[in-house]
C-alpha cells in the first residue's frame, strides 16, 4: 500500500489531470474505500486513489471549469456515482485479476441474457455477447495500445446499464450497416428519378410554414414527435425512457400537435393568407408536399458529442 488511509492524496500521489493536483481529503478517501470495499477486489489503496483522482479530475468533481471542489462537494460528487461499479470497471480495465473474476461472476450471465434479448435470437445474442466480452477484456488494440471500453465508464449510471447500452449500440450499428445489403441477383436498378413538378404556390407556403413551426418546437417536443410518429414507439416505451407516466406522454403529444397546428396557421396567416384560406391549406394532402419530415425533424445544429458512430 502506497499511502496510509488518513494521508491526504494531495500530499502523496501527485496524480492530477491536466497538470492540476487533485485535492481529495484523506478522511473522505478512507470513507469511500470502506464504502465500496475495494479490498475485496484486490485493489491497493494507491490504485483506488488513482481511480478516484482520475474520475474526479476529469469532470472537476461535477463543477464548472476552474473551480476547486470542497470536501463536501467532492463527497457529494462521489456519492452521486455508482462507486462500486466504477471501481470494479476501472480495476478490470487495469487488468486486475480478482476484479475480472468478480466481473465475470456478476455480469457474465446478465450480459448474455441482455444480448439475446437485444438480438432477438440465441445465436446472434451469444455472438454479440462474445464480441462485447472480447472488447471489454481489452483484446482490441489501437496504435499498439490495448484499449478497453470500460475505461469510458464514469459511474454515472449502473455498470449493467452501461453494458446493455453498449450491446444495443453494437447491435444497432451492425444492423444499420448491413440491413441495406442485398444479393446482386435481387438487385434492381432504380428507375431514374422523375423531375418533381413544381409545387403550387399554396403548397410552397404551407411547406415553409410547417418547417418554421417545427423549428420552433422545444427539444422534448421534437423528441416526442420523432419517437411517436417517426419511430412509431408506443406511449409506454416513450414514458419508460422519459420516466413519466404514459398518460403524461399522451397529454404532451396532444398539446404539441395542437400547438404545432396553431403555429402553422399563424405562419400561414403571416404569409398573407386569410384564416379561412389557411385552414383550407391545412387540409391539403400531405403527399402533395415535397418535404421529408424525418429529415426536417432530425435536423441538427449541434455537434456536442465527439464519439464516432462507426468506431
Amino acid at each position, binding site marked *: 500500500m502506497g499511502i496510509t488511509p488518513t494521508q491526504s492524496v494531495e500530499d502523496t500521489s501527485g496524480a492530477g489531470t491536466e497538470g492540476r493536483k487533485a485535492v481529495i481529503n484523506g478522511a473522505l478517501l478512507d470513507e469511500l474505500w470502506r464504502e465500496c470495499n475495494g479490498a475485496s477486489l484486490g485493489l491497493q489503496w494507491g490504485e483506488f486513489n488513482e481511480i478516484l483522482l482520475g474520475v474526479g479530475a476529469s469532470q472537476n468533481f*461535477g463543477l464548472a471549469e476552474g473551480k476547486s471542489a470542497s470536501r463536501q462537494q467532492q463527497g457529494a460528487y462521489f456519492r*452521486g456515482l455508482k462507486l462500486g461499479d466504477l471501481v470494479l470497471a476501472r480495476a478490470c480495465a487495469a487488468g486486475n485479476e480478482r476484479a475480472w473474476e468478480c466481473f465475470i461472476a456478476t455480469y457474465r450471465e*446478465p450480459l448474455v*441474457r*441482455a444480448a439475446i*434479448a*437485444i438480438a432477438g435470437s440465441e445465436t446472434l445474442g451469444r455472438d454479440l455477447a462474445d464480441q462485447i466480452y472480447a472488447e471489454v477484456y481489452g483484446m482490441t488494440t489501437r496504435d499498439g495500445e490495448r484499449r478497453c*471500453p470500460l475505461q*469510458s*465508464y*464514469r459511474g*454515472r*449510471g*449502473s455498470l449493467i*446499464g*452501461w453494458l*446493455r*447500452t*453498449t*450491446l*444495443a*449500440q453494437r*447491435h*444497432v*450499428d451492425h444492423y*444499420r450497416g448491413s440491413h441495406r445489403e442485398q444479393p446482386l441477383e435481387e438487385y434492381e436498378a432504380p428507375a431514374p428519378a422523375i423531375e418533381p413538378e413544381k409545387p403550387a404556390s399554396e403548397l410552397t407556403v404551407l411547406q415553409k410554414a410547417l*418547417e418554421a413551426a417545427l423549428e420552433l418546437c422545444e*427539444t*422534448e417536443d*421534437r*423528441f416526442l414527435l*420523432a*419517437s411517436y410518429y*417517426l*419511430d412509431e*414507439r408506443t406511449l409506454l*416505451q416513450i414514458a*419508460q*425512457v422519459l*420516466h413519466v407516466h404514459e398518460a403524461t406522454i399522451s397529454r404532451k403529444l396532444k398539446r404539441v400537435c395542437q400547438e404545432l397546428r396553431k403555429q402553422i396557421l399563424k405562419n400561414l396567416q403571416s404569409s398573407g393568407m386569410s384564416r379561412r384560406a389557411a385552414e383550407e391549406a391545412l387540409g391539403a394532402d400531405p403527399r402533395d408536399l415535397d*418535404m*421529408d419530415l*424525418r*429529415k*426536417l*425533424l*432530425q*435536423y*441538427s445544429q*449541434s*455537434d*456536442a*458529442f*465527439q*464519439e*464516432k*458512430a462507426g468506431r
Partner: protein
Amino acid sequence: MNSKPQLDHHPDAESLNAFAEQALAVQERGKILAHLAECSRCRQVVYLAQETAAEMEPAATAPAPGPAGRRKFWLRNWWLVWAPVGALAAIVSLAYVVHLWRVEMAPELAKVVPQAVAQNEEISAKSPAPPTEMQSAPPPVAVAPSIPAPKSPGPHLASAFPELLPLSNAVASGGETRKMSNPRPDEAALPPGAPAAGYPALSAAAEYKAGPATAMREVEQERAAGSQSRAFSAQSTAKAKTKEQAQRETSGGMLTAAAPAPTFTAASPPPGSLDADKLNGAGGVFAVYKANPTELPSGLAPVSTATVSHLVLAVDRLGSVYLSEDSGSTWASVAKQWMGRAASVRLQPAVNTNGEEAYSAPSFEIVNDVGLVWVSTDGRTWKAK
C-alpha cells in the same frame, strides 16, 4: 429544407445509459435529449436498452413479497374485513325487511278481490269442519292471505321481488322446457297425514299454515265461477260422492272424486284440505286433489294444477303458468295472455246442450286474482271466457 445526412457524432454509452437512468444533470440531460430528438440511431439504442432493462429487471430486482410479509399485512389490516361483512349484512337485512313488508302487505292486497271471491269466503266460513283425517292439521284461517308466507319452497329473494321472477325464470329455463323429476304415483297418492320424510315438497306443504283455507277458497271460487259446472246432475254427483267416499276409505284419507274416463284432475297443494261433500255437492270440479311434490321451473311448488290425459297445467303462487305434455316430466312456461295474476287453474268439462257432462273435449281454465276466467283447449292459447 435541411439535407444534412445522419449525424457523425453520438454520445457514448455512458451518457446514453446515464440519460436512461436519469443520472444526468439538467443541462447535460437537455443536450442528450436534443441529440436524441435528431438522431434516430441513438433513439434506437436508448429504446433497445430500455426495453431490455424492462425485460430483465423485474425478475432480477423486484423481489416478490414473501408470505410472511403478506401475512403481516393482513394481520395489520384485519379490520378492513369489516367493510365487506358490514355491506353484506346490510343487504341481507334490507332484503329481510322488504320481505316482511311484502308479507304484511299481502292481506291488504287480498281485500281487493271481487265480490265473487268474497262470497266464496262466506261459503267457506259456513262450510262444515274438515274431515277427521285433517284434524291434526292446523285449523283453517278465516281470512287467509292470498299470498302465503313462503316456508320452504322458492328462494326468499324471489318472494321479496316477484317482479324479477319472470326474468329469472327465463334465465333459468333459457326459453326451453326444463326437465323436472316426474312425481311417482305413490308420492302423489300419499295421504295428508302420512309422514313426509323423503318428500321435501310434501313436508313443505304440510307446513303451509294458511293452506287449507286457501285451497278451500280456491275451490269455492272455482265453483262460483264455473256456471256450467252447476249443471251437474244430481245423479252423477251422487255417483261421484259414493265412489269418492269409497276411495277415501281405501287410500287412507286422500280425497278423491272419481269420474268417468277420461281422467282429469285439479290438484291443490294443501293436502286434504277439501271437503269432498261440499265439492261434489256443488258439482263444480270433478277432480282428484292430491299433494303434489313436484317443483315448477320457477323453483316453486304448484298451487294449482289441472290434468287431462298427459297434459298437466300448473300455476305457482306467483301466478306463472306452466304446461307439461308428458305428465309433469318436463315443463314449459305458458306466455301470459290473461290479465292480472293467475290464481288457479282448473278443468272445465264440455257440457252438452242438455246440461249433462260430455268429456269429449274438456278445456282448461285459468282464474285470475280478481276472479276473471280464461279458457283454453290446449293449454297454450287462451281467450277470455
